[in-house]
């Protein structure tokens, strides 16, 4: 077999010009286009009086489990839908079709996060007028989704006891953006030797304002507080307008 030497193309670097040019001021945010879509989503959800939460976490921290139990337990109180993003498969959307809720799957392909334009298309598939609450289950990733506003009302970041106590320190931008932090798999804390105090200390250092809830979707521990949070958010949204008020039910 003949072995040929293939020159490695570093010409892209070599081609860089040293010539100066005239300066043009731009000052344009790279996220401006996404932010426009996000604003449109926010207005659309607001006009339909739908509250929207963006759920973020690393893969496997329990977003889908938390949501599927929530959809079941709150099905009498709230009209809910889920928009779920994954790189591949529609397994999550199928897992989330419980309690009569609609689940729309966005397959992002190779993209590591959801963008506002994708959510806009998913909203087209929902009957917003009928809904109280839309969850966006983002792609499991604590890095890229932090930079993309989707038009949500608030961000909920999940952090499971199976992850290290220092996760908030490793992904400060994500944890800083959360209004609520849900510590999941609380039932496993003891067997895992999860250092709750260290985790709370780290969370407080990165995000002193966020509310923190500890839950186990498996045993039901702490789920009441999570449900109360959701019901309150929807009630507040409805109080600012006159759709079908929750207070009537």
């Amino acid at each position, binding site marked *: 077999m003949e072995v040929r030497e293939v020159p490695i193309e570093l010409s*892209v670097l070599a081609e860089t*010009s040293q*010539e*100066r040019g005239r*300066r*043009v001021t731009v000052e344009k945010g*790279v*996220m401006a286009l996404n932010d426009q879509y996000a604003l449109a989503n926010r207005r659309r959800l607001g006009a339909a009086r739908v509250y929207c939460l963006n759920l973020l976490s690393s893969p496997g921290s329990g977003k889908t489990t938390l949501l599927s139990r929530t959809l079941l337990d709150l099905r009498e109180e709230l009209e809910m839908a889920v928009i779920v993003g994954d790189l591949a498969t529609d397994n999550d959307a199928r897992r989330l079709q419980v309690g009569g809720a609609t689940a729309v799957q966005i397959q992002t392909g190779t993209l590591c996060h959801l963008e506002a334009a994708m959510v806009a298309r998913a909203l087209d598939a929902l009957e917003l007028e009928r809904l109280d609450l839309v969850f966006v289950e983002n792609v499991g990733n604590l*890095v890229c989704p932090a930079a993309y506003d989707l038009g949500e009302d608030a961000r909920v970041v999940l952090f499971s006891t199976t992850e290290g106590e220092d996760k908030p320190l490793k992904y400060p931008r994500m944890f800083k953006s959360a209004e609520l932090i849900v510590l999941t798999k609380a039932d496993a804390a003891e067997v895992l030797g999860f250092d709750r105090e260290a985790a709370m200390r780290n969370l407080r*250092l990165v995000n002193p304002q966020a509310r923190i809830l500890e839950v186990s979707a498996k045993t039901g521990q702490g789920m009441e507080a999570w449900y109360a949070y959701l019901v309150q958010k929807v009630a507040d949204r409805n109080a600012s307008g006159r759709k079908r008020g929750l207070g009537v039910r």
Partner: protein
Amino acid sequence: MHELGIMQRVLEIAEEYAGREGATAIREIGLKVGVLGGVEREALEFAFEAAKAGTLAHQARLNIQWMPLVAFCEECEVEFEVDSPFGIALCPICQEPIGTLEQGQELEVEYLEVV
């Protein structure tokens, strides 16, 4: 790893502005990136080299200005630069952690050099 998508967007913006100026080539693109902007220098530079081919910026240089983290403590009314690599903003006066950042998360095309 969303630097490639971001760089494609940067190049779209750069070409749009260069086009308005009637430029035939872009020589330099100046970015302003917060240290907590969610992008890495090496990945950005790699994405730039990969994505600039076939654009007006195919021979352009990338100049990244890194913006340090700045936080503001409302209690002490003091603005301070955060030196923690983890983005932990402790007020230099009261030592309390501050959640919101004034600066350090930006991602902006600041200027171009065109011919």
